[in-house]
């Protein structure tokens, strides 16, 4: 022990509370966060229901428009857009329904539901990323097709 320190001196505050580093912070989920997650159950259920309603309306609209179309060039793009949109919509509907179910479990006090809810959030963002990439690809294709169509000579009538 060094001679210049008093062995009977009370401990200093810095000795009792060492500086907090980022590695020391434990990411503990607070009760308020859990309650906030549990409160999202009706919203997710509503999102699934509304997405289902939009899909149903789109299905009826596609059937009517394809039925009214006189040529395959009129009905083709509509069928393709519906075929692309159907699995995407169904995926998001199932995701929202699963999220709502786990949020209800959490509201009933089952804390094990937090992990599937966080997984659902991760899948939602991953799917949104894929959707954004598809959207960008479609937009680029549309611009290219538009430019090609604008440059091509007009067919003689």
């Amino acid at each position, binding site marked *: 022990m060094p001679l210049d320190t008093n062995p009977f001196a009370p401990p200093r505050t810095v000795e009792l509370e060492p500086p907090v580093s980022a590695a020391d912070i434990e990411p503990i989920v607070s009760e308020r*966060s859990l309650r906030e997650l549990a409160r999202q159950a009706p*919203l997710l259920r509503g999102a699934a229901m509304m997405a289902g309603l939009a899909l149903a309306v789109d299905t009826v*609209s596609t059937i009517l428009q394809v039925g009214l179309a006189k040529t395959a060039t009129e009905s083709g793009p509509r069928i393709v857009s519906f075929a692309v949109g159907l699995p995407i919509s169904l995926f998001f509907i199932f995701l929202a329904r699963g999220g709502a179910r786990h949020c209800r479990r959490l509201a009933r006090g089952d804390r094990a539901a937090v992990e599937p809810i966080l997984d659902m959030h*991760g899948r939602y963002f991953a799917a949104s990323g894929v959707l954004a990439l598809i959207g960008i690809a479609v937009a680029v294709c549309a611009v290219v097709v538009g430019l090609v169509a604008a440059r091509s000579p007009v067919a003689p009538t």
Partner: protein
Amino acid sequence: VTPPVEIAAEAAPPASPPLRLSEDRLRRLQRAAGRARVLGVAGLSASTLLILGLLVADAAMSSALSQGTVVLMLFVACLLIAGSSQMYGYGKNVRAFLADGEPFLLRAFQNLRRLWILWIGTSVATALASIVLTLKRLRP
């Protein structure tokens, strides 16, 4: 005689232990936050491009775009801006939670709640637009 403080302590329900996330879950949360931030920035860029494209197209075609098209495009751009900002906010708050703890996760979940509300609004708008377009096609 039992002091009232102890009676109150006995009457209170047992506090549930704090919920700690596993290492694997934290890693997944971090990955989701990264995706959310990228999506937020991409969405904000796309909405800016959409609005600029709309202005350029309107100027190039000397205001030939119909009022309905302009309103629809602006509505889509507003939805994109709102959704992207909530996604970016989620990503930012989760990153802050992983560095500093609560209340940042609570804020991230509040961002998600607003995102779900936007999702409901978008679905309703899509259904209405689909109905209007079909009725237009059906009209002789």
